[in-house]
């Protein structure tokens, strides 16, 4: 029985870390990010490994700084358009020219927090706040029949005039949502809806019910609402099921402890809610799908959860981990091979200045987990931006995506006023920073602020920073839309950047991760070569010779090039045996052969 219960719990507990952490430390007083001047539009900038191409200020209808009411939120991408959520609506940008993004339209519709996704001509926007109305009117909700909490669907076939097609109401509203494609029917997508609130009363939305027992399928609390969207008939979109991925979890175990089943608590407002609270998590903050791998990573309050989504209407939890250093498992990014997943911790909820020198590095940052052959999770190192931010800057790890550099796992990530960071997590035990873009605070420090003062300024910074078709787009909550490009440095070569730029998507929703496939191309081969040079993975004499042979082959064409490349591949394959990094040499061999085969 004990065995059975334990397997039902299926919660693995993070014990001692697999390997010791790298002694990550805050930088010394010479870090260029220290002492940046403040300002909304003219703050000082420190930048490494990137170049800022443009900053487009917020659309006029959202151009106000008043707490969180008008802040920008997340991004979605399609073609030359960027869809930028805002707590008071959304904006559509034409970014054909990165230097001068053009505002196509801005919609004025209170919809906190406005997490967007785009599929074809349909734009989906998450609505959670208690003041969101069906009709987008201002002034809040006075009649509960007007309350909109769920996902708004817009037809954006004409991006200049978005048209609201449907408000899909959900019991817990929608803090975020994630697109999961139908396994076979390209005309259908699912939206996994993460709602962080309690279920609405039955009187407001029929069928909604709070309940204390996760296993009770009639309660609306312990589930992610799953919306099925027939793309040709968006007006028929509806909640079809609840993803019950929490059942049996129980409260998060302490590090080194063991998951336990639920247990009632005393001293709370109702017996039912007491039971619910003792039952462990019931919400995810965000879930990241990797459909090509049938995987989903749920960042769910006190747990990071790995889920099999082969059948999107019947997801199956594979594993769950807890870590007492993490306050709020917030979001996740998979490595392209699906063997690692980076989870973030939104300690303080994003509005607190949690990157100060007094703040522990293992709180409010990332952690890398390895996904084993058995599809279980093992936690490895933490990563936090190696810069101490001021008491005026809300800062914690937030949303990001992979940069498609072959042979490495690199992500770009927004850290609110901590800026935009580029992180290599190829080695799960040694993640490190390879670039950053940081502005000074919006608000000037005032007399009495000290390094560990906890006064907070205007909420701003990068909500999310994503790579899309060759550029980095960062949604600045208060300042608008930043577009950046990569610049080579010691940790990232021009060839690696060029190879990343070869990967193009028609559409990109960052939390529904596409599988990266690189075309056969010289920059891909040279990326591996540069990596072997950088890490001494192959003898210098050989890397130099291989570089010369690649140059020769590139000057050739047709059969001559093909012959040169095949000869080179055979020679490099022999190099693998004596190489320090034989695996990378083999990856290069495969890339050379791909290139030979693609040569006509």
């Amino acid at each position, binding site marked *: 029985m004990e065995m059975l219960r334990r397997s039902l719990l299926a919660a693995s507990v993070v014990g001692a870390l697999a390997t010791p952490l790298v002694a990550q430390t805050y930088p010394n007083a010479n870090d260029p990010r220290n002492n940046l001047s403040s300002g909304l539009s003219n703050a000082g900038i420190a930048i490494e490994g990137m170049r800022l191409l443009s900053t487009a200020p917020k659309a006029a209808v959202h151009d106000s700084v008043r707490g969180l009411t008008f802040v920008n939120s997340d991004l979605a991408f399609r073609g030359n358009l960027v869809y930028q959520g805002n*707590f008071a609506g959304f904006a559509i940008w034409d970014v054909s020219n990165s230097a001068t993004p053009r505002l196509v339209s801005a919609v004025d519709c209170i919809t906190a927090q406005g997490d967007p996704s785009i599929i074809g001509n349909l734009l989906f926007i998450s609505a959670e706040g208690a*003041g969101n109305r069906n009709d987008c009117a201002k002034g809040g909700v006075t009649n509960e029949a007007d309350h909109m909490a769920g996902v708004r669907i817009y037809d954006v076939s004409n991006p200049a005039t978005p048209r609201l097609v449907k408000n899909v109401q959900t019991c817990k509203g929608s803090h975020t949502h994630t697109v999961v494609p139908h396994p076979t029917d390209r005309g259908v997508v699912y939206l996994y809806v993460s709602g962080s609130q309690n279920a609405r009363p039955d009187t407001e939305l029929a069928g909604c019910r709070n309940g204390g027992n996760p296993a009770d399928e009639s309660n609306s609390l312990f589930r992610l609402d799953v919306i099925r969207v027939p793309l040709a008939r968006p007006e028929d979109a509806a909640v079809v099921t609840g993803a019950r991925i929490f059942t049996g979890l129980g*409260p*998060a175990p302490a590090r080194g402890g063991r998951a336990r089943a639920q247990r009632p608590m005393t001293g709370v407002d109702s017996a039912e809610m007491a039971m619910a609270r003792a039952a462990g998590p019931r919400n995810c903050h965000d879930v990241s799908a990797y459909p090509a791998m049938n995987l989903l990573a749920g960042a769910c309050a006190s747990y990071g959860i790995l889920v099999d989504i082969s059948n999107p209407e019947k997801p199956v939890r594979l594993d769950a981990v807890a870590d007492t250093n993490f*306050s709020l498992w917030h979001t996740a990014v998979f490595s392209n091979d699906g063997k690692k997943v980076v989870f973030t911790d939104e300690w303080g909820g994003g509005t607190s200045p949690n990157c100060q020198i007094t703040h522990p590095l293992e709180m409010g940052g990332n952690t890398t987990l390895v996904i084993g052959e058995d599809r279980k999770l093992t936690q490895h190192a933490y990563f936090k931006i190696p810069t101490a931010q001021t008491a005026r800057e809300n800062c914690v790890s937030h949303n990001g995506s992979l940069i498609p550099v072959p042979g490495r796992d690199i992500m770009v990530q927004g850290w609110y006023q901590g800026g935009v960071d580029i992180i290599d997590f190829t080695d799960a035990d040694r993640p490190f920073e390879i670039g950053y873009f940081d502005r000074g605070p919006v608000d000037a420090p005032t007399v009495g602020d000290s390094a560990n003062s906890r006064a907070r300024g205007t909420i701003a910074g990068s909500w999310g920073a994503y790579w899309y078709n060759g550029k980095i787009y960062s949604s600045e909550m208060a300042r608008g839309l930043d577009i950046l490009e990569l610049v080579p440095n010691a940790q990232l070569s021009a060839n690696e950047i060029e190879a990343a730029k070869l990967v193009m998507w028609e559409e990109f929703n960052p939390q529904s991760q596409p599988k990266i496939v690189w075309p056969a191309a010289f920059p891909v081969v040279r990326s591996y070569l540069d990596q072997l040079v950088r890490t001494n993975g192959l003898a210098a004499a050989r890397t130099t010779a291989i570089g010369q042979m690649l140059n020769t082959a590139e000057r050739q064409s047709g059969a001559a090039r093909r012959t040169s490349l095949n000869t080179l591949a055979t020679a490099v394959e022999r190099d693998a045996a004596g190489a320090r990094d034989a695996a990378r040499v083999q990856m290069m061999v495969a890339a050379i052969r791909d290139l030979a085969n693609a040569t006509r």
Partner: protein
Amino acid sequence: MEGMPAVTIPAGALFVEADVRFMQGMIAHHAQAVYMTRMAEGAGASPRVLRLANKIDLSQAGEISLMQGWLRSNGQVAPDTSSWRSMRMAGMLTDAELQQLAASRGRDFDRLFLQLMIRHHEGALSMVSDLLKTPRAAQDVDVNVLANEVETSQMAEIELMLQMLEELN
């Protein structure tokens, strides 16, 4: 509310009196939690409890600034960090309980701290729950987001403290 003047809601505001009372009350509530956490070091708490205390301190002190900022920018009275001495919100410790905690050491402190902090956190959850049940309340985005953050983070900390407590016993 004890110690707090009457609330005037400006015309056109999206917030109601319950929102103001929630923010004011939560400042006092958080301030007492911070006061409790700062006893841990001197009381010879275990490293785990000390670590938890530090995390609660950093988290709630940050939220106090946030709530004070919201109240001031909306023309309301913002209590300071001594307000817990005059305001009694759900789950807060009585003077006798505080004295008991202050007098305990080592393992006894760990146990009592966890028990009382669990109850303290439960009180915060009740305050959030009461707010969300109030008609027209929590429609202001900042109040809504803060209430959610308090609920999410403290619920997770309760889970953790329950486990720590069980391992102590």
